[in-house]
């Protein structure tokens, strides 16, 4: 996507039929349309047979409209919503393996506690921290942990949910379409 003064980070949610190859279709579209995706997370939604994807992309409003309309054209994608301006609750989970011996372990544990993370594994040389939080919160924790030496890290990417009732209905449009049928 073109660099633009109005570029900002957008959080989008897409609902799609849970069928083989759907993720490939979405990923292929992002690649061939030259859309840059920062993170992408997919899993079940509340509707059986419908998966829910949260992805984060940088670009202008116009870029995002292209992403949305192009995604909408995929036959298996039932709904796409840009929730950036809907003040969504967004969270990410990270597992972080940090160097920690008898000298540093206490400090690592204290920092983890400040960030509301949990130590879920300890051995003589390292600990594994689990943290669920906003992206910025996880980034801050990582910055501090860098001083001890991060051995391994995995992040899930952002998931998001909008507070008001209407948005929970979005994926239900698929259900009503099912009941009505085409033709």
């Amino acid at each position: 996507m073109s660099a633009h003064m109005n570029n900002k980070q957008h959080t989008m949610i897409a609902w799609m039929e849970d069928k083989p190859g759907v993720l490939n279709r979405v990923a292929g579209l992002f690649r061939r349309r030259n859309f840059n995706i920062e993170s992408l997370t997919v899993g079940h939604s509340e509707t059986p047979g419908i998966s829910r994807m949260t992805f984060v992309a940088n670009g202008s409003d116009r870029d995002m409209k292209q992403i949305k309309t192009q995604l909408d054209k995929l036959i298996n994608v039932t709904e796409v919503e840009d929730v950036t301006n809907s003040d969504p609750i967004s969270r990410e989970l990270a597992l972080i393996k940090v160097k920690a011996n008898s000298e540093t372990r206490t400090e690592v544990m204290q920092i983890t506690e400040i960030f509301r993370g949990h130590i879920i594994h300890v051995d003589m040389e390292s600990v594994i921290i689990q943290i669920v939080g906003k992206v910025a919160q996880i980034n801050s924790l990582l910055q501090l942990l860098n001083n001890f030496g991060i051995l391994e890290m995995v992040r899930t990417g952002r998931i998001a949910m909008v507070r008001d009732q209407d948005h929970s209905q979005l994926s239900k449009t698929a259900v009503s379409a099912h009941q009505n049928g085409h033709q």
Partner: protein
Amino acid sequence: MSNIKTGGQIIWESLIAEDVEVVFGLPGGAILPAYDDLAKYEYPIHHVLVTHEQGASHMADGYARATGRVGVCIATSGPGATNLITGLATAYMDSTPIVAITGQVPNSLLGRDGFQESDVQGVSLPVTKHNYLITDIRDLAMAIKEAFYIASTGRPGPVLVDVCKDVQQATMDFEYPKSIYLPGYNPNVNAPDSGDVTRAAELLNNAERPLIVSGQGVSIARAEKELRELAEKANIPVATSLLGIGTFPTTHPLSISWGGMHGEAYCNYALQDCDVLFAIGARLDDRLTGAFDTFAPKAKIIHADIDPAEMGKNLTIDTPVIGDALLILRELVPQVEANEHPAWLAQIQEWKSETTNRDILEQETDELVAPYIMRALWHETDEGDATIVTDVGQHQMWEAQYYNHTKPRSLLTSGGLGTMGYALPAAIGAQMGSPDEEIWVVAGDGGFQMTMVELSTIMQENLPIKIAIINNGYLGMVRQWQDVFYNKRHSGTPLFNPDFIKLAEAYGMAARRVTKKDEAIEAIKEAQNFDGPFLLEFQVEEFTNVYPMVAPGKSNADMIRRPAEATSEGN
């Protein structure tokens, strides 16, 4: 009561349920069970055996463009399927409805690099509107039904159904499904938003220099009559895109031909000067617009199209109108006020007389050149009463400039993908769909050779197709770019050609070589009067180039015009 069928039978019976009468294909191991069922049960479907599977997908494309119906092609796994891809990509870019059925290795070999296995679903993914891999016979009929529905509705496009060999051999109790469930598919077949239509009407009513750009969407929606009503009611000049040629008669007083890279200069002037531009059923691609940020700089742009993703994809749009072109025009025409626009039309007329003389009609040469041949062909086909299927290159632009198309679907050409080799097989498909139509292939010597193996298909089916090869001994359009942008270094563009007359004779096809201007008309007549296919080779002046020309990435306002002193620019 049970109705036990094999997967192969289900394929054919599903096609029959979709009113398919002809398919284009070539068998191989992984599709053999289906081919066996075709013969065994004598299904009433005409199978056209092609020479190369690329031909099959282009034939399905030509059939679809000529008739408006879904074209069907069929191939085996691996190389058979990958050979279809160029034709599918061509159809995808030009929104042509095709259903492609391919055989796939049996389930037991899937993913194990079996003989003639390729990931056809993966390979075809970016060049199809949708595709299926069928590993279970219970999904087969539904996939075919969905494929036809998806291919033919909304913005049409190719859909591929890849069927494992063991699925074709399996059996089940068959009933063709009556309804389908596609919760994520919205073909926008409903009426457009009335507020958008009203805004479009207001813009047009207040315009001083309005202009219509008509694209292929008008033809897909069969809205040519309504387009004409709109233009005539408010006296709005109509330009077309390349694929929109035929949606508005080029001979109509309000026609301003077509615009873009090789469109007529006066049309480009009008595009750049209009104050309201109403584009309908055209995707406004770079070949039409020139550099996006320079296109129609004075205009408020109304973009009417069935595909919401086209809105703002290339240009900043003032008023999008989403929907079927026919429904949009039906709502729009009553809201548009009668108007005259005399000053605007007079201005266009002034541009036209200058530019047409300079770029289009100024062909004072005794040499045999393609523009002359196109004019002659137009005249000899009752002034436009034929379907012309062009290849890609200089001849394609000349055909579009000099053959005045007056009827819908009378020019079939690969606009978006620019696929050389399209013309010959696409013409075969078109003739199969429209057996009574006079059909001409117009191809360059380069593109013709890419798919000329289908000459055997013409002979096999005894189709009365007339072929005009415009032979200048070069990949002409590439050579033209080298002339203009690469210091006339003709890198890889001179061609070694066969003797096209002997080639035709080898296939048993009548043929004639034309080397002189004064033989052209008589040769065209001879081809027309011949009862059967006929190949004409026109050996034209080598170095003639197409004008006007907008350099890629430049504005339509910066056209390279025909050099005033010469019609050719040899060494």
